[in-house]
Each structure stands twice: as C-alpha cells, then as structure tokens.
C-alpha cells in the first residue's frame, strides 16, 4: 500500500475508534481530547483533499475466485465534496458533545460514544473515497454499526430504537451486498473481465438482472437516507437517541452517504436515462416522501420526533431533484443535501439544548423559552426559516433550484415523468408550505407561548454548545445570500461535469424582483384583509376569563402550539390514516415483525417437545434421504 494522504482520514479514526471501544470508561477525558484532535485532523485533511486531491491508493486485500477485494481509494470530485462536509459535521458534533455529554449522567458510555463517533468519521471517509464496491460496502456496514452503538448510548427506550435502526439498515445492507454481486455479474460477459471498480462500470438497464441490481442498491441508498417507505427508523431513533447523535448521523452523515450512493448508482454505475420507469419510480419516492412525511410531522407532539419526520421529508427534495436528471435539478438536489444537513443538524442541536436544559422534549410542556435561551432561539429560528424555504436563507435557494429542475425537465424531455411535472412541482411546493406550518407550531410551542412555571429557572447552554449551533446558523445565512458566489460556483458546479457530462451548464433564474415584490405585497395585503374582515365583522368579544371570583394561576391557560393542526388530524379520512400510522400499520419493520412472529409461532407449535413427534420427523427425513440417494426420485 502506497503512502497517501487519502489513507489517513479513513484509517486513523477507524483504528483509534476501535481501540477506544475496547477501553474502559474511566478514560473519558482522554477520549474527548483524542476525538477532538482526530476530528480536527480529518477536517483539515478533508479541506486539503478537496482543494488538491491525493494520490490513489491500491491495496489488494484478498482474491476469492474471480472476485477481488481491493481497497482502492480515489479522490473524485463528488466524493471530495461530500467528504469536506462529512468531516466538517464530524468536527462540529464532537465540539457540541464535549460539553453536553459531561453534563449528563451518561458517563457510562463514554467509550462507546466517542469510539463510535470516530468509527462514523472514518467509515464515511472510507465510503466517500472508495472506488471499489465491495470495500465501499464494508465501510458502509461500519457506519451502520456505529449508528447502532451511538443510538444505544441514549436513555430509556433507546435499546428499542437502536435495534430497529440496525435491523432496518441491516436489511438494506443485505440488499446492498446482493446488489453489489449482481453488478459484478452484469459488468461484463467475460468472467475474467468482470469488475467491481466503480469508475469502470456502466450498465444499461434494459434487462432483468441489472434492474434487480439497481433496485437492490436503491433500497440501500434510500434506507440510509431515510426516504419513504423505509424511513421508519429515523423517527423512532429521533425520539429516543441523544440529540447530538441525531444531528450527526440521521440528519447529516447518513443523508450525505445515502444520497452519495444514490448519485453513484444513478449517474455512474447504471445508465437509467433510457429506463423511464426507474426514473419515474425515483420521482414518485421523492414526491411521496416530501408530502407524507411532512403531513405526519405536523401533528407530532415530541420535539425530536417532529424534527425527524422533517429529516425524512427533506430527503424527498433531494431524490426528486436527482430524478429530474437536469443539471439544475441535480445541482439543486446536491445543494439541498448540504443545506439540509446544515439546518437539520442545527435544529437537532437546538432541540438537544432545550431538552438538556428543561429535561423534556414534549412540546406541551415547553414554552416561552425565547427569553431564557436567546441564542438557541435565534439559531433555531434561522434554521426553521431555512428549512421552510423562506428567502434569503439557503433552503429557499436549493428548493427553488429543484422547482426549476422540474420545470426544465418538463420542457426538455418527453415521457411520463416529464408529463407529470405539475404533480412533482405541486408536491414540492405544497410540502414546503406544510413545513413552514409545522415550524410555526414548533417555534411557538418552544420559544413563544407562555413559560410554564416549572421552567422558570431554565438557563442558556454553555458557549461550547452555542458555537456549533451559531456556525451552522451562520452557514444558513451565508449559503442563502451568497448562494451563487460561495456554494454553487466554488463547491457544486465543479463537480457537475462528472455527473451529467459536458453540458453541465445551467442558468439559474432566481426571481424577477418586481413581480415577486408585487406578489408578496399582494399576499400580505390579502392576509391583512382577512384579519380586518374578521375583526370588523364584530363577532368576537374579548372579555377577561370569568373565574367566579377565585384567583387562579393556571399554567394550562395558554395557546398550546400542539393544538394548531388538530383540525387536520381529526379530519375524516386523514384521521384514520393518522391513527394507523401511529399504530405502525405502515411500518415495514412492525409488519415484518408480526409476520416473522406468526411464522415462528407456527414452527414453535411444531416443536411440542414430544419425543414421538420428533421420531416421526426423523423417519420422514430418513425416507426422503433414501429416495434421493438411492435415485428413486
């Protein structure tokens, strides 16, 4: 193995992380310092690799039959870009955890927490730099395991969440593995020339086997990214896992990796432009994810669960952007990926800060924290406005690019997917509106509303925790205002040629200032009008509450944000869906569990413990073996 800068971000964290897992908890301060140092190193290396690349590494590990397992580390434009952000998030989350972990009583798990964080950093570096599918798969599984370990450091029911996440992602990893081998089988007619090197595979999707391989890999990608219908591990772990874990993995790195894999399979391994059905499938997954997840998010009462459903919903935009196949749509998808990671991490960190200071994540028990935690409020507000797509924040720009991608596709392509462009556009825009609606609820319940008496002594979190939140919020603003100068021209445009070929030029027509101003003014005007009509119609009487002369101090006399969308959730038709959803009827994990239990129950019933029964099986087995071996069958 040649020496190269590419090895360090992969192996340094992996090795140290693994050793850390095996060391006792007592050394927790050492773990903290070590994790911080290594995450700084990997971040710096991420920048260096992004700016100047690195020499390729080739290390043949083992040859089994005709299949070679090689470690090929290559710096590709897309991988470098993702690496920069993955390492950046690793560093920020480490910073945040330094203080937050020492406050809690979770010292028990320090070795697991920091060890798994390092494994995540090293594993994702490995995924993003690997040019060999099998090696990529190995790193992919390492990240899955570290997610499990990280979630399991939480309290209460985190064991359930960790199990569910690992089971679901493990299933997708299994699909990934089969997909990888099918890709190998399809990669060439001639066995000796078959390969697993990503850069030398290009499969047309016109026969059955490549399509199956594509679907298997797609399954892995969307499970990791958390798109419908395989998203259910995200909200469950969101509810129970530590907030910093959610900010690191499901909100940021898992999205990066999932979408990275999606881009790799859609743009590099397979040629799907010709396969309209597959493209349509992607668009449907994207659109459905946007709408359904945000509908569920609206009615959540748990802060972290609400955020998790948004983490699901936002993936839909990225997938939709990629599904358009237009340069602007793909650029928008990638830009949205980055933006989402930024504001969603920020939101989870804010949520974690609130939970840490108040001891609860239930929206009904929170309120009026704006004055107590001003920094958290400010950063949370910025992130919430970004995710809702309000200009001039970053979420607006990337969503706008995705809308344009959809429209461009309609004018530039033929076929079902292009013909259905209004559906995609409406899904994306309506989803954005609902996002805003649910964040109005979130901000209201947490920071406005009235302060419950139990939270009178709440204080702001420490500076070490504010810094990562503030950095992320600042990025929201910078990427929003200087969208063209900083992220698009410096980061995203250079990597487009490697994805969509030479004609990667796109024209970003952001908005027509005059028209937009008129529209916004009109919108505000109509709003005022509605308010005035309500006011002037004189049907509302405002009087002080009649308390029969008693003096009452009732905390519950507030406008609870949790009731904002009760009308939606109790609407006929929707109500049944919501109930079914909360009971897990649409959850593949729950349903799969029920099916497996039924099957197991039957098998257990067969194992009654009766000796004669067992002897009967034995005899039957003997007969079958006799028939087969003696050639009677």
């Amino acid at each position: 193995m040649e020496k190269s800068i590419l090895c360090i971000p992969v192996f340094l964290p992996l090795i140290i992380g693994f050793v850390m897992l095996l060391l006792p908890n007592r050394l927790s301060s050492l773990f903290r310092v070590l994790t911080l140092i290594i995450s700084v190193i990997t971040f710096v290396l991420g920048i260096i690799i992004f700016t100047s690349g690195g020499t390729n590494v080739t290390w043949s590990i083992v040859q089994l039959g005709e299949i070679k397992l090689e470690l090929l580390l290559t710096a590709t434009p897309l991988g470098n870009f993702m690496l920069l952000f993955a390492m950046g998030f690793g560093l920020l989350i480490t910073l945040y955890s330094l203080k937050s972990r020492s406050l809690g009583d979770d010292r028990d798990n320090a070795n697991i927490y920091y060890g798994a964080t390092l494994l995540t950093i090293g594993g994702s570096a490995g995924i993003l730099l690997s040019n060999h599918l099998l090696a990529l798969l190995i790193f992919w599984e390492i990240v899955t395991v570290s997610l499990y370990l990280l979630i399991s450091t939480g309290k209460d029911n985190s064991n359930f969440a960790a199990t569910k996440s690992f089971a679901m992602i493990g299933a997708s990893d299994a699909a990934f593995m089969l997909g990888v081998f099918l890709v190998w089988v399809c990669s060439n007619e001639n066995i000796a020339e078959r390969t697993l090197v990503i850069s030398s595979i290009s499969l047309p999707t016109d026969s059955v086997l490549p399509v199956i391989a594509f679907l298997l890999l797609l399954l892995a990608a969307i499970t990791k990214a958390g798109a419908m219908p395989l998203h259910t591990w995200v909200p469950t772990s969101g509810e129970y896992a530590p907030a910093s874990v959610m900010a690191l993995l499901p909100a940021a790195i898992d999205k990066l990796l999932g979408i990275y894999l999606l881009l790799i399979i859609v743009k590099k391994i397979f040629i799907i432009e010709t396969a309209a059905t597959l493209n349509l499938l992607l668009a449907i997954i994207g659109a459905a994810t946007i709408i359904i997840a945000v509908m569920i998010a609206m009615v959540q009462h748990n802060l972290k669960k609400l955020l998790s459903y948004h983490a699901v919903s936002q993936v839909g935009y990225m997938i939709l952007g990629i599904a358009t196949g237009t340069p602007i749509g793909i650029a928008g998808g990638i830009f949205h990926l980055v933006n989402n990671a930024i504001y969603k991490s920020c939101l989870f960190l804010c949520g974690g800060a609130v939970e840490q200071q108040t001891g609860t994540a239930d929206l009904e028990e929170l309120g009026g924290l704006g004055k107590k935690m001003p920094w958290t409020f400010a950063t949370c507000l910025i992130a919430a406005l970004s995710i809702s797509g309000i200009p001039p924040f970053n979420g607006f720009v990337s969503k706008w690019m995705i809308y344009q991608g959809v429209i461009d596709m309609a004018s530039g392509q033929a076929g079902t997917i292009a013909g259905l462009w209004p559906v995609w556009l409406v899904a994306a825009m309506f989803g954005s509106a609902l996002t805003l609606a649910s964040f109005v609820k979130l901000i209201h319940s947490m920071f406005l509303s009235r302060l419950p008496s139990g939270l009178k002594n709440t204080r702001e979190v420490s500076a070490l925790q504010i810094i990562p939140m503030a950095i992320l919020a600042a990025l929201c603003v910078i990427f929003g205002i200087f969208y063209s100068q900083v992220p698009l021209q410096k980061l995203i445009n250079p990597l487009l040629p490697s994805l969509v070929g030479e004609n990667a030029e796109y024209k970003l027509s952001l908005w027509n200032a005059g028209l937009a101003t008129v529209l916004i003014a009109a919108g505000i005007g109509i709003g005022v009008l509605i308010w005035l009509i309500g006011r002037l119609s004189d049907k509302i009487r405002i009087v002080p509450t009649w308390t029969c002369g008693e003096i009452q101090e009732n905390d519950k006399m507030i406008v609870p944000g949790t009731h904002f969308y009760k009308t939606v959730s109790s609407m006929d038709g929707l109500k049944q869906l919501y109930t079914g959803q909360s009971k897990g009827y649409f959850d593949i994990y729950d349903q799969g569990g029920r099916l497996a239990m039924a099957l197991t129950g039957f098998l257990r019933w067969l194992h009654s413990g009766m000796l004669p029964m067992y002897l009967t099986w034995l005899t039957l087995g003997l007969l079958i073996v006799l028939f087969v071996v003696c050639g009677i069958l």
Partner: protein
Amino acid sequence: MIGLLPAFVVIPLIAAFILPLFGKKGKDAATILANAVILLLLVLAVVAVYSGKQGIYEIGDWSIPLGINLVLDGLSALMLLAIATVATAAMLFSARYMEQYTAKAKYLSLFLLMVAGMNGVVLSGDIFNLFVFLEIASLASYALVGFGCGHEELEASFKYMVLGSVGSIFILFSVGLVYGHTGTLNMAYISQTIQNNGGLNAGLTFALALFIVGFGLKAALVPFHAWLPDAHPSAPAPISAMLSGILIKTLGVYALSRVVFNIFGVSQATGWLIIVLGLISMIIGAFLAIGQEDLKRLMAYSSISQIGYVVLGIGLGAALIQKGEDKLASLAILGGLFHLVNHAVYKSLLFLNSGSIEMATGTRRLEQMGGLAAKLPYTRATCAVASASIVGIPPFSGFWSKLILIIAAILAGYYWIAAIIVFVSLCTLIMYLKVHRYVFLGQLPEKLQNARENKGTMLFAMAFLACLCILMGLLVIIPGLKEAVLDPAVKVLTGGFEYSRFVIGPGG
C-alpha cells in the same frame, strides 16, 4: 509428530479415568490437572497444524488393513486444532463456573472423555473405530447434558439419548453393511474397493443414505435436529459451548464429509441433498431462534442455522466437484470449513457469555434481564464481538466465511443460494440484536441491582475467544496463513479418492 498421534486420544482418556479418584477434597488439583491436559492437547494440535506433517500411525505396528490406523491429514489437523481451542476455553471457564455444581471431578472426567472421543473420531482411519469414538463422545455428552440433575436437564438428556441412539444405530447398521459389501473396515480400503468396483451397488447406496441420516442427526440438521434445542440449553454453559461449538461439527459435519467425499465419492444427488439440508437448517433454525425468549435456547437454534452454512458450503463443493468445477468447489468448501472453525469459536464464546450472564442473574429468560451493560461490561464486550462475528460484520471472522460462501454461490451461478445466505444473515442479525436489546441495554430490573460479573478464569476464557474472533479474519487476508491452515483441509475434501492413495501408499 506422527508418533505422537495416539497421545491425542490416550492422554485425555487416561486423565479421564484418573480424575474421579480425586474426590471432593482434591477438587482443585483435579481442575489443574484437567486444564493442563487440555492445554497440552492445544499445544500438540498447534504443532500438528504448524508442522504441516501428514501421515499414518499404525497401532501396535499391525499394518493395515489388518490393524487399526490413525490418519493425520489437513482436515484432521484443522479439526484437532478447533477441538483443542474450544476445549481450552471451556475448561478454563469451568474452573470457576462448575463450582456451582457438586461432583466437579466427575464432570471433568466426562469432559475429557468427550474430548478423547472427538479426537478419536477425527483421527481414526477405521470406520468401526470412528463409530466407537463417536459413541464415547456421545455417551459422555448425554451424561453431561443431564449433569444438573434437575427435572429439565434429565428430560433433555433422555430425549437427546433416545434420538442420539437412533442416529448411532443407523451409523452402526451402515458400518455393518459396508463391511458386508467390501470386506474391510479400513476407510481407505473401503474407498479403494468402491473405486475398483466402479461405483456403488445397491447395498452401499443404502449404507450411504443411512450414514447421511446418522451423521446428519449428530450434526443437528433439520429435520433431524429436534434433540438439540432441549439438550444444548440444559447443559452447563461450558458444555453447551462444547456441544454447540465443536461436538456437532466433529460427530456430524466432519464425519459426514469424510464419508461422502473420501469414502463413497460425491455425486450430484448427494451434493444437492446436502445443500438442501443445509438451506432448510439455515432458514428454519433462524426463524425458530428469533422467537425464543430463553437466551440459551435462542443460541441453540442459532447453532442449527449456522451448521446449515457449514453444510451448505460442503454440499455446494460436492455438487461443483461433480460438475468438474474444481476451483469453485474448493472455494465453496473453503467457505464451509472456515465457517466451521469460526462458528466453533464464536458460538462457544456466546455460550460462555450466557453462562456468565446466568451466573450473575440466576435466570435465562430474556424478559427478566436488562441494562446489564453497566454490571457486566466485559461479558458485554466479548458478547458484542461474538455477535458481530456470527452476524457477519466486517472485519470480524464470520464476515469472511460468509463472504466466501456468497461469492462461491455467485460464481457458481446460484444467485438464489446467495440470496438465502444473505437473508439468513439478516435473521441472525435480528436475533442477536434481540439478545443485546434485552440483556445488555434498557432498564436494569430491581432484582438485578446486585448482579456482579465474575472475573478471573471465566473472563480470561471469554477474552481468549474474543481475540480469536477478531483475529481469525486474518486467516484469509494474510497470504501465507490460508495456505498453511485452511487449504490443506480443503484439499483433503476436493481430493476425494486421493485419500485412499494417501493412506495405502502408491504401491497399494
């Protein structure tokens, strides 16, 4: 080395008969003696593998086929090493664990008898002797399963004995048939006679079928598995580790592959029969394991599922040899044998973990445990390593053997077999997630606030096996190791009838 071959059988046998004399007062001396014997066997086995020597030992200098011979080839050497490794850990674990039971010296004696029996099975070059050693090991294991003398243990032991005896009878009957048709009991000469006759006649075919059922029963393949889920959980933990870890493989898989590959010769029908038995065991074992609420029972069912992998690899090898694809066949067999060794290590580690948990909590029911990560950190760590191996998470050992099996299936064009392997791995993942969820994570029940980990030799035994789990992946990655350890064993099976030429010599 070859001169030392009888030592593998004789030393534990003699020690087994000396040990009961120690009685109650000499308990510690007996423990030390037994541990020393097993350690000596480990050293001998390492030397046997490391030296790479192969050869025949003729007992009492009676030349074959008149006398009885012991044969050391690649496969026996690998099995000897596996037996000695698992036995070392289990014995070390017993030193403290078996203090809970009375009559420790008798336990140690039975343990050594079982080891002697297994070593005899893998070394024997004589089919009747193979049966005798198999019976020694089986009888010792019947007694050990019932060692607790509780209601449950005795019932399990009885069932095990009835079904095990049925299996033994099939094998004995089959040995008789073979003798009748070939006039010899020496495995190499039987094989030679079959080659000279140009194939199997009806009687020998019948004998082969009985062998498959008999050894299949010892290997606990579905549908001959029914004794295992009762017997393995009821035994004391180190014995469960021995039974699941190595006994079913020695008496079942090793004997089966020796008979099928080296004596009778492979055919398409037997190859596919073994593949199907393996696949059924994998799937049914896995489903049954997921539903269990008893920790050791879950692990026992998972053993059935894992033995399926081993048998699948070997069956695939048989079918591929028959198709003339020798390179692929050796890959499949390599996968099977490597999985056998890996499973021996991690499954015995898992059973030792279960023993440590049972000792600390006094229960095997999953729902009565929880949050033990804080109380039993070392058990948790070693259990995590073993689980990661059995599930097949890179870079732990199980990953590599499953990878080899999958690649063999893919290269052979049986994509559906690869899909089943992957699917069963997923089931395995779910069952061990369940173990960790209920045992180590979650809330600590009131009753278990005082649970304490037992350190000392028990911990050492677990740590030893955990290190092996981490390091055994190197067996395929480091170039020289695979050639030295695994390939000779694979060659014995792919070589098929070469065995008889090797034993009888070129002139015979």
